[in-house]
């Protein structure tokens, strides 16, 4: 998952980014003003951020204006607002302008992370923090994985690849998409890194079982799906 944090206070932005990286395993980009935030949100839109965390009080282009322009461009990325304002009118105005949720400063980091996770899985059409594909269960809160009732230990990057695939079961996910959603813009993009993680996942998830979940479509990407395609609907 990749998150854009638009916050003009560098220390707060760093703290939020650190929490998202350490506790949710997300890739995080930081924009320190509104213009940069809008630029990043719109240029990365082709691949897409999975969440935008937006401060309202920004020098130059304000958070509310950024939100309106972002929504006007047709973007559907969930937006979580950070604001020092907590009057009812401004909350209503924010939600009406296209914000998905709202945390008032000074916020609780745990609550902030939980809300961020909710927005990401909702944005991908899931209701509960446990994602299921066949007999595979991905617990996004504990960040643990079970298959057929057996706990499977994954490396952090392997988990992040699997979580992204589990959020979009049965869809073809390209290597580029994975790179864009798993690394922030500061990181180098080596496509063979993904292949290494996929082979690691195969070894731990598929090899001990008869039916395979991870499929490769040559030249297109990867698909996570149960063999008989009989898993319960993701939106249940």
């Amino acid at each position, binding site marked *: 998952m990749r998150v854009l944090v638009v916050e003009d206070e560098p220390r707060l932005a760093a703290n939020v980014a650190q929490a998202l990286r350490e506790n949710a395993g997300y890739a995080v980009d930081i924009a320190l003003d509104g213009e940069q935030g809008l630029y990043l949100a719109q240029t990365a839109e082709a691949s897409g951020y999975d969440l935008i965390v937006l401060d309202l009080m920004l020098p130059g282009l304000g958070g509310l204006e950024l939100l309106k322009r972002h929504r006007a461009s047709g973007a559907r990325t969930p937006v979580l607002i950070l604001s020092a304002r907590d009057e009812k009118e401004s909350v209503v105005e924010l939600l009406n302008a296209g914000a998905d949720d709202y945390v008032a400063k*000074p916020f609780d980091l745990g609550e902030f992370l939980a809300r961020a996770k909710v927005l990401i899985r909702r944005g991908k059409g899931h209701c509960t923090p446990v994602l299921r594909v066949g007999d595979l269960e991905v617990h996004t809160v504990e960040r643990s994985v079970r298959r057929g009732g057996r706990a499977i230990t994954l490396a952090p990057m392997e988990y992040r690849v699997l979580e992204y695939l589990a959020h979009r079961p049965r869809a073809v996910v390209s290597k580029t998409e994975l790179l864009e959603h798993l690394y922030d813009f500061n990181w180098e993009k080596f496509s063979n890194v993904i292949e290494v993680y996929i082979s690691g996942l195969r070894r731990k998830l598929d090899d001990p079982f008869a039916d395979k979940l991870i499929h490769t479509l040559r030249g297109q990407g990867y698909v996570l799906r149960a063999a008989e395609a009989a898993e319960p609907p993701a939106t249940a």
Partner: protein
Amino acid sequence: MTRTSLTARLLAGVVLAQLLLAAGLVWAGIVFTRRQLRHAFDAGLEGRLMSVAALVRYPEAGPGLVFDASLVPPSRNPRFPAFYQVQGPDGGVVANNFPAEVALPAAGSPAAPPWRFHYRGRAYRGLVQAHQPILDTEENLSGPRAELTVYYAAPLLDLDEEVAAAGVAIGATSLVLLLLTSLLAAWAIRRELDPLRELAQQAAAISPRNWRFQPSPETAATPELRPLIAALERMLARLHASHEQQRAFMADAAHHLKTPVAILKSTLQALLRRPREREEYLAAAQASLLDVERLEQLLQRMLRLARLEQTSDPWAAAEARPLPPTEVGATCQAALERVQPLARARGIELRGVGLEDGHRLRADPDDLELVWVNLLENAVQHSPAGAAVELACAAAADRVRVRVRDQGGGIPAADVPLVFERFRRGADSPAGGFGLGLAIARAIVEAYGGSIAVEPQPPPGATLTVTLPLEPFHERGSPLQREVRAAFLGKKPQERDPNRL
């Protein structure tokens, strides 16, 4: 001290006026009645005198005259009878019942005024008429025609009683009317005081949630109430503005305190979410300490600004605290020294011009120094490296002017009205500022009766000018405050040129 109600006092005034009126009426009525009755009495006196004269006849034989006293009508009060005396042509008394002690005046003309005397303590009024003919038939006339002189007097007893009765009648009527009109007046006064009650209700309904003060058009049009209403409206407007200022300050302050608190909280929460290395704890603790210091600095500045805005409040009594005469140049010099480290770090040259002139004004030197420091810091922060910032001090006859000029990007015209607003930060403001420096500078300058402004100038650079009056601190304030102060100090406010403030 409690005072009697306005209604009661107005009513008392009305009743008193009416009592005076009634007394006047009774008095005038009595005088008039008395005069009328006296005229009537005199007319009656004359008539009765003539009827007495008519009782004189010629005797059927012989000389002399005959008077038949039995035909004189009897007096109503036998103790005070009417008196008469008839004298014949030769002066002989034909008839008389005047007591001996009553002296009769000499007979005058027929139009002689009545005379007065007292008999048994009772006032009498008498009339004398000479040349009264004898009203007898010619057949009885045996000698020449004679003329009589007749005296007649009657007691004024009846007259006084009637006058008293008239007085009582007028007085009683007046009292009844007075009672009625007093009731009417009481009702009218109560009704006319309704607008006052309405104003009181309106004033009582005013609260921080309701600033509406709109008397009904009838009340507002009452000439006596117009000054009161106008004064109330002015007072409300000032209170409202002051209240709004406080409210806005509270909102601003709360808003700007939340972000530093959020930073601190998120740092500590992130730190505690998992076990860390010793170095990480140390780094986080140091960062948090810096955050707390910054928060403390912000709080101090906000409180300072809040206090300054309070004292510039028109209601805050501007107590004339004794302030030392402070040399402006010296405070400028101190400020330049304080900002020097920041300027050096940013590669900016600081210059002071005209600081040795020694202009003095009554002010707290720390206040003045803070103004210059804030202006200089602002200029330094908006200057490119290698530029210069100049602080120039100059005095006119009654004021001192301090200019701070930088060579930065200047202030966009649209931002000029906003630069002195609290928490206002320009687009190129460095991170970490609070946006309070210029607001504090303005609040201090205004507290000393001065002004601060952005000078219009072509780019590059910006010039901020502070003008402070050299007059003593206590001379400032609203015209009313000055008047009150002048009253205490024994000076006339008109003696001063109002343009000097």
